[in-house]
């Protein structure tokens, strides 16, 4: 039996890696992957807490998150494709028509 605190710390580390990646990487795909990492860190924490608490709410939410993440990926990639057709780039820094 792994103690809950270990699971939470593990998930926090993954969450932080995802967050730093999402904020610092310049390629849209890597940003998207980092965000997926954040969501999966949440799932790990939820399932850990759920088994420690002995109720199912966390697992229910984790399944919902997986579903929503799939939807998000679909919409996100569609937007990236549309943008790539217009601008021929997926670099976040080059996407700068709108500012101030």
């Amino acid at each position, binding site marked *: 039996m792994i103690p809950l605190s270990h699971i939470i710390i593990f998930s926090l580390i993954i969450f932080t890696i995802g967050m730093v990646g999402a904020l610092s990487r310049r390629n849209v795909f890597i940003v998207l992957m980092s965000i997926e990492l954040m*969501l999966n860190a949440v799932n790990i924490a939820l399932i850990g807490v759920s088994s420690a608490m002995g109720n199912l709410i966390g697992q229910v939410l984790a399944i919902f998150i997986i579903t929503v993440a799939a939807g998000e990926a679909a*919409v996100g990639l569609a937007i990236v494709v*549309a943008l790539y057709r217009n601008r021929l780039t997926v670099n976040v820094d080059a996407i700068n028509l709108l500012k101030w």
Partner: protein
Amino acid sequence: MNVTVPMPNLSLVVPEILMVILACGLLLVDLFIPKDRKRVVGYIALAGVVVVGVVTAAFWGKMAQPATTFSGTFVLDRFALFFKEVFLFTTGITILISLKYLEIEKVSLGEYYALMLFCTLGMMIMVSGADLIVIYLGIETMALSVYVLAGFMKFDHKCTEAALKYFLLGVFISGILLYGITLIYAATGSTQLAQVAAVIKEKGLAKNPLLVLAMFMLAAGLGLEIAMAPFHFWAPDVYEGAPTPITAFISVAPKAAAFAALVRIFYHGIQLLEPQWQILLWIICAVTMTIGNVTALMQQNVKRMLAYSSVAHAGYILLGVLAANQVGVQGIAFYFFAYAFMNMGAFGLVIYLRRENIVGDDIDDFKGLAQTHPLLAVIMVVFLLSLAGIPPTAGFVGKFLLFAAAIKAGFYWLVALAALNSVVALFYYFRIAKAMYMQSPEPLPQLSPGRGLVLALVVVGVFTLFFGIYPQPLMSLAKDTAHTFMMFLS
């Protein structure tokens, strides 16, 4: 573990069910309508929204007491009903102002209306969520539809860029929101607001650092849609790039939904953390108002200016949340209707100014409008007066309620700051009025009126004035809303 699933009381979710049927039905009907007549899909959507609006309104009398279903995860009370009407009204007006605009932009597609209805559905679920899971699902249903709508003109460079920016920030923040939900679950063992509140009270968790962190994360997650500082950076970019009807929609409906969810979570879920969230919201409120108004001063683009003004309005509405009293909730409810009237109107005017190759969102495009289109200029001045909060307009009454609530709760400094901000706001709103009345018009191609757009402008214009002069009907509805909502609290 033996799990029994009780049959939910479906009569409370009739508006949502109708909305799902309508949206899915539209996608089907869309297949049978020829490409050049997609406007028909819009008419069907509009009729459907009116029907759902009437059905929702029919619940009002029965909901003096809140009722829950789906094992207490879905609540229907007057607060939820009131906000659902705000969303449906906004959606209806948005459809009206979209009809012609989409044809001009050559993106008149049936999916547009279906997506808009799915978005409305998400918001309706969100305000009825009595469980953090339901609120999260509502947010995502809304957000995923809005991301697509924001990038609907897929050959427009600015538009796709706006969609990407909105999407990346939205998904990033939803990760943070989820971690907040997880922390609340870890600390209390439940995600249902009523149970969370009960556990916090029972175990004395009001100063638990985990819950305080969760509170920050939830505020951040909802703060994005609200566009409150420091999560307002997306707003001007997305507002400028997105199709103008969608800009109008985003500036009102998702903001209202996020506010409703914020109020429900903070008042019904973690109300014992009030000392902590009061400090947090106090700072956010002050910063949001000031940043919004000061940055709006420097804008040349009317859509960007209205974006910053909407950030400022989020600040004013936060006054009502902070006050945490009945007048505050009443003010929030009233203000959102008023805000829907005036903001939809102002953006409607920008759509009206759409000309060949010109988006019509530069302040110079308003030059001399009083000479060429006097009526249009007058109606714009009404919206500007209302946005600035000057009587006799609905915006004034709303602002008055919010300020009164904050004074009642003892936030004198904040109200003073808000009043100062309102003065600053006058300056940039009246730059538009100045361009319309004091400058001479340039020879310009035809404007683009449409029957739907004119109807929408007349409706919101009349409402702005009517509820400014005679606010009683809306005021008493808002009062009932606040009354049942706060009763549930104690």
